[in-house]
């Protein structure tokens, strides 16, 4: 399996873009811009399977790419925006880890992901690509957003970025993973976001706020 340098360069550029979007997500202080960042990242990742199939056109891969772009780039952000409007919350994100510390954590995570990937025993065809560091960095960014933000919707965005990281890992195995698994993950994700949208509405009605810090005590 020989990868042309041009294709590999474009792929690395896309993953680099996704890594930059990770940091943008960590630094953005408003919900709409966070949602937009996540949707752009989903679109960028959606293009990737087409690039891996250099030259040849595969219906299954094209379908995965199209479904990913539609799902992550359009459908899920629309659901999140709808939940945001329905719950009528303010758009400022209240971080429990500040923007600068989380940005520095994310940058540190990205750099150590690149360093770690250099130490891993990868297949020779994956050694030069950013697939593995990009995946690890996205998973770390997702964790930071999940831990460091208090609003339920921004935590959902963290979860989406985490899933994007897992999706980049999946790119390594695109030829051996059946289409069914890919579409299953995507469907799960969409349903998950749908359910979270409903839950967000419920939380908002019950507590007058989406702050998950209020949800720490159980009551009868």
């Amino acid at each position, binding site marked *: 399996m020989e990868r042309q340098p041009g294709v590999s360069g474009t792929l690395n*550029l896309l993953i*680099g873009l996704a890594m*930059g979007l990770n*940091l943008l997500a960590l*630094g953005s*202080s408003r919900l709409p811009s966070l949602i937009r960042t996540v949707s752009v990242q989903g679109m960028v990742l959606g293009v990737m399977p087409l690039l891996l199939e250099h030259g040849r056109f595969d219906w299954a891969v094209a379908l995965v790419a199209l479904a990913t772009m539609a799902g992550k780039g359009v459908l899920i952000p629309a659901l999140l925006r709808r939940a945001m409007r329905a719950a009528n919350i303010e758009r400022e994100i209240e971080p429990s880890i500040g*923007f*600068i510390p989380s*940005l*520095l954590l994310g*940058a540190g995570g*990205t*750099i150590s992901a*690149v360093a770690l990937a250099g130490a891993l025993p990868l297949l020779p065809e994956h050694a030069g690509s950013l697939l593995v560091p990009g995946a690890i960095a996205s998973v770390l960014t997702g964790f930071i957003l999940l831990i460091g933000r208090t609003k339920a919707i921004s935590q959902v965005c963290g979860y989406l970025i985490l899933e994007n990281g897992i999706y980049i890992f999946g790119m390594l195995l695109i030829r051996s993973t059946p289409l069914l698994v890919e579409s299953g993950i995507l469907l799960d994700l969409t349903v998950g976001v749908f359910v979270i949208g409903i839950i967000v509405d419920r939380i908002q009605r019950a507590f007058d706020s989406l702050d998950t810090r209020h949800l720490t005590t159980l009551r009868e």
Partner: protein
Amino acid sequence: MTQSLLFIAGLILRLAFWLMLAPLLPGIINKVKAWVAGRRGPPLLQLYYDLAKLWQKETVLSTSASPAFVAGPAVAWVALAGAALLLPLGPAGAALSFRGDALLLIYLLALARFCTAWAAMETGSAFEGMGTAREVSYAVLIEAAIIAAVLSLSIQTGSISLAVMLSPTSGAGAALLAAGLFTVLLAENCRVPFDDPNTHLELTMIHEAMVLDHSGPPLAVILHGASIKLLLCAVLLTEAVLPMRGLAPLPAAGALVAGILAVTAGVGLVESLLARFAFRRVPLLLTTAFLLCLFALLIAWKGNPA
């Protein structure tokens, strides 16, 4: 004998280039801003008139100020002019070039900042103390970004001499470096997202608050030094990003001038289209600039495993 005469002549020509052309840049920025706003704007040479006027005025000295009140701006101006001489001018090369002059450039910029801050605090005015505190605290982040940028250039070329270092490669690293250095340029010269050079509202001023008590020739020296710094940052940004090593002297000089003009127009556009950021947002933007330079460093390091 002729060798040293040629060297001195070159030095004087270069110094004349930096000192005479520097006040033009703020004029260009103001023209761009006026053009976007649909005004006629101040004349292109406004800063020259201002400097000439200030030079003829008398200096008002506070009774509490020590001689450093006047010496500070003078030392800062000399440091900035010296830093400018270290920077190669496209095909003409640098006046002085030796191993490690990149470090001297960073330290001369820091010395200039220190002297301005010192002179600002001489009168004991609260506003100037406030402006100094802001300037110095932002400088911590700006310098981190500059050092990361210089390191990435030095790793790319395996040298710490500015004349060799400023031969950039194209690609993602250059784009990151350009974005990072442009943000540094805006912050370092107190342009709009960080500080508004036109504002005279004490609560929001940074650089302007530092020079409130200066008048006459010292103020002229400070303003001229600031314009040298702007030109220096523009030249550094252009040469760090635009690959013009292979060009013939004339196109290379043209590319350098075009690059400087593009950077200046970019500053004017940013200034017209963006509002000043709130203070608590500024460190975030500066950290972003630092990270951009850091990732350029990472790319240089990964791309050059030797």
